[in-house]
């Protein structure tokens, strides 16, 4: 999966001269946490996040009610935004895992997606979590099975052969080195249109592999 497949296209954009109160309202009303700031032709100029709107309480405490109002109403997006040269971005052809790594490395919540300097989308934590659900087959119902296999060639082929021979298919597959156990791999498969017992019976025949976990996921 590439960034272009899971990003949110047409993100809500604001301009530099938008009042800060307006930006805050847009975020709350639309339940969003990141607002890319765009100039003419949707070029990225900066980014406003909820943290950027959080003022230090001790700073506000030094002002009275009237001063706070005047102060806030005079502020525009330009005053608080993170400038474009400090914003981490990605491009539509990047892989999801690379994009996710930028986000975890920098501990940031979103990456504006740029093509020729023009904003074409945004990739947020939510988008990544959604793509994670899709990759593990959550939108489809079926039997979810975790199988542990030794780390050697041809093990996965054994599973697919058994399924294929029995006219079964998989809607999603994920594999990772078994945690806290060297030399083994775990694979999570989702198999639609079949009942639990049949899968247990079919897969337990495979030599050298064991079913770690099995459940029906509607």
């Amino acid at each position, binding site marked *: 999966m590439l960034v272009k497949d899971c990003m949110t296209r047409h993100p809500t954009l604001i301009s530099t001269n938008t009042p800060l109160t307006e930006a805050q309202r847009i975020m709350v009303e639309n339940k969003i946490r990141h607002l890319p700031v765009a100039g003419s032709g949707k070029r990225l100029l900066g980014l406003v996040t909820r943290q950027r709107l959080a003022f230090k309480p001790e700073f506000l405490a030094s002002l009275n009610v009237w001063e706070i109002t005047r102060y806030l109403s005079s502020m525009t997006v330009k005053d608080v935004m993170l400038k474009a040269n400090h914003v981490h971005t990605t491009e539509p052809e990047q892989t999801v895992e690379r994009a996710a790594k930028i986000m975890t490395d920098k501990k940031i919540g979103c990456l504006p997606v740029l093509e*020729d300097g023009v904003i074409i989308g945004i990739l947020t934590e939510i988008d990544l979590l959604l793509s994670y659900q899709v990759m593990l087959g959550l939108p489809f119902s079926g039997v979810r099975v975790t199988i542990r296999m030794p780390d050697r060639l041809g093990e996965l082929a054994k599973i697919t052969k058994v399924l294929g021979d029995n006219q079964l298919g998989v809607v999603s597959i994920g594999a990772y080195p078994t945690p806290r156990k060297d030399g083994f791999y775990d694979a999570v498969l989702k198999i639609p249109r079949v009942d639990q017992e049949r899968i247990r019976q079919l897969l337990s025949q495979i030599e050298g592999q064991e079913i770690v976990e099995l459940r029906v996921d509607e």
Partner: protein
Amino acid sequence: MDKTKKMRNRDDAPVIRIHDLAVAYKVRGGEIEAVQNVSFDIYRGETQGIVGESGCGKSTVAWAIVNFLGANGYVKRGSIKFMGQDLVGKKGEDLRRLRGDQIAMVYQDPMQALNPSMRLGDQLKEVLTVHRGLSESKASKHCIEMLERVYMPDAANVMNRYPHQISGGQQQRVVIAMALLNNPALLIMDEPTTALDVTVEAAVLDLIAELRRDFDTAIMYISHNLGVVARVSTRVGVMYAGEMVERATVEEIYKNPQHPYTQGLIRCVPKLGSDKSSSILYPIRGRVPPPDNRPSGCIFAPRCDYVQELCREDRPRLRQIPSGSWVACHFTEEIDPDQWEPPEDLVLPDISVREGNGKAVLEVKGLKKYYQVPGSSLKDVLGLKKPSLVKAVEDATFSVPKGKTLGIVGESGCGKSTLVKTIIGLEDSTAGEATFLGFDITKDLSARDQQLIKELQMVFQNPDSTMNPSFTVGQQIARPMHLFKTVPKKQVRQEVIKLLRAMRLGANYYDRIPRQLSGGEKQRVGIARALASHPEVVLCDEPVSALDVSVQAAILNLLLEVQSEFGTTLLFIAHDLSVVRYFSDYVAVMYLGQIVEIGPAEAIYKPPYHPYTEALLSAVPIPDPSAKQKHIRLEGTVPSSMNPPQGCRFHTRCPRREMLADPEICLTLPPWRDVSGDHRIFCHHSLETLSQFDPVITTT
């Protein structure tokens, strides 16, 4: 991925949210609220269809979004929020930037969106160089990619052409490509396919659906055609007299319409999937109230069959009912459309198969009409070169029995109108025979007898351009009576009033002038005028294509009634295959001047088909999202009739050509194959092969 998309879409913020919108125009002596109580949301990757008859405010809503209301129009109430930002009151640079970068529009006439004096490439590139500041070469590369994306043949070359050098369908593709170049979040399409042929329309609609998926664009799709909306939309809003009366998903609207107006609309559209007897059209009585004179209660009350006291007093608001639809009706829960009975005063025509006496009134055999095209070279001017010919009608052969209707269908430019004009005598024929009641009618009109002219009359597509705007309705209808002396002078007035009554217009229309009539009324006057001389044959050239569906149903029923009363024979031209089926006894399908299939109406819509008929049928938009339709799209454009393909004229685009054992045979003229009785197909394929095709439309 469809399923995964649904998972999130409706939780997100909408691209555009319109809430309780009212748009007013300031006019002399006050203001008119053209649009009231309109609310809807469009999410990413969704298409909101907006349907309704003309003048009900569909386009006004679209203009309000981009603030194109003109100097006297303004948003009176409500809000339009685009990506969370209020668009009402936004102006100057901010609005310009939004329109350029994030909202795009496609209108009905592509020629009005394209600059005729600039090359297409320059116009396309301009979008990118101005808005995005791309370099010339980069922009050009981008534009070619986008043109290829909209399936423009020979994209690189098209960049160097001028708008008039490409066809209408291609022009609309260029406009769509231009709209998508900036990757807009919202695309507003106002009747983008109305001016196109069915086959081209089908291809453009496919394209729109595909682009919505690929670019996740929110589309607002305005159309008066229920079939088109069913094909492209995910949600549909029905507008009536400036208000949104129903809003639901596309499946709900067509399967389970809630508002009486929506039910009425669906009843007056001809359905292709069902058989002829179930395709009776029930027009909605009355007409849309003008915006300055709307009823104070429910706006639909004067035309509603279920009207009650409450409806006249209190205007219903849009409310959500358990099925999820939003309806503006007080009694929607109590209305069951299956229990609906046509009101008693509605006269329905008898569409059962009528027994004629079988004698042919009009017989045409091998009729040809060629036009000479003057060239511009010196040789042409001196007359040394043989003039080139446009073969508009080639070998037309058919006969129409008395009291029957022959429908003629085909794409534009296939010679339908020329055929009719040749028969009525506006053009003389080049070769062939045509006899009417035994008289030869191949010659020009001037050579015809008065009596013969009297017996052949015509109804035109556009009543506006065929009526003298300064003559009263009475004078116009009386004119043929005076000319042909069919009625004694003293009785003319009575006779005209009798005709007006037959057209359901009433005597008070006698002294009106055309501009005081609505489109449907004008067309009724046009029909009355054609009937004034009691003709034997009436030729109708697209008499209903410019009219709204409810008016169209009324006019069609009226024509059928006239036919059964006077025993008139009709020739009926239309491009809409569903209308023709309802209306005709026989149908002829034309392609590039050649009749390719002719036969009884029922037989045309079932296999065996001519491959062209099959393609036409699969392109017709059906107002039923559950109907399954074969997906056949013709490639390329109709070849020029100046230089038609050799042999079978359809072979250059024929989707069934590959099935022939020897494709070269297409270069010779195909034989006429007799299916049964009057049903004939002009094709190289054998009848066995043609019969094997599946039916194009299957309804569940």
